[in-house]
């Protein structure tokens, strides 16, 4: 089943902040199986999800970074972050788990508008 509809999933929370991180990634995997093109936007504190070495066992939480790394196998390769968020936390994009495209604040609204479906849990 093919579709012309594009899907943008917006993540806004840091790692381990709530079940919406996991639930959003599950939607990404579920929809890509149905050939819906999926893009991910990591907004604000969600850039922390993209850091390596989460050491989630220390707080007895499930590490989502293997799922993030598996996105590529599902043909989910379009990941976006804001330049401003990288600067705010002094992160380099080479340090991130995924190969992300950076957007500026002024590009954001237009970027979101180009998708048919936007889910922001």
């Amino acid at each position, binding site marked *: 089943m093919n579709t012309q509809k594009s899907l943008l999933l917006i993540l806004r929370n840091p790692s381990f902040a709530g079940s*919406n991180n996991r*639930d959003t990634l*599950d939607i990404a*995997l*579920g*929809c890509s*199986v149905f050939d819906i093109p999926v893009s991910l936007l990591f907004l604000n504190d969600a850039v922390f999800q993209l850091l390596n070495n989460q050491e989630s066992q220390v707080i007895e939480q499930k590490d989502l970074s293997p799922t993030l790394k598996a996105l590529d196998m599902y043909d989910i390769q379009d990941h976006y972050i804001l330049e401003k968020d990288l600067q705010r936390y002094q992160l380099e994009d080479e340090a991130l788990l995924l190969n992300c495209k950076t957007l500026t604040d002024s590009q954001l609204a237009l970027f979101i508008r180009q998708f048919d479906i936007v*889910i922001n849990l």
Partner: protein
Amino acid sequence: MIFSILLYASQSSAQSEQSALRFTRSALQQGHKIHRVFFYGESVNAISSFKVTPRDEVDITDQWLLLAQKADIDLVVCIAAAVRRGILDTQEAQRHEKKSANIKEGFNLSGLGQLADAIIQSDRLITFGN
């Protein structure tokens, strides 16, 4: 226009599911079609047949059933979200060796594929989250 609804918030401690219900009623009144309501995240907690709503309050889950019967709406509960919160149908109760099923009659446990299908089949997907 064909709409589908994605529910994500707790029915008992947030307003958004009430808003979703009222949105759905209005859309139907205006001649639109609601294809599917997909219960995800905390919203699945309310789909228990063990839930008891105080007599002077409205049970939103019952209202969904009424609407679904009237307007042929598919009520789907995400199976992964439900099982981890203890909302089980007979099959899942057997699979996980639990004493009984407790999902409310009229709701179907199914996978995220039903959300993907809702996206494909509908003109709009509206999320009612936190």
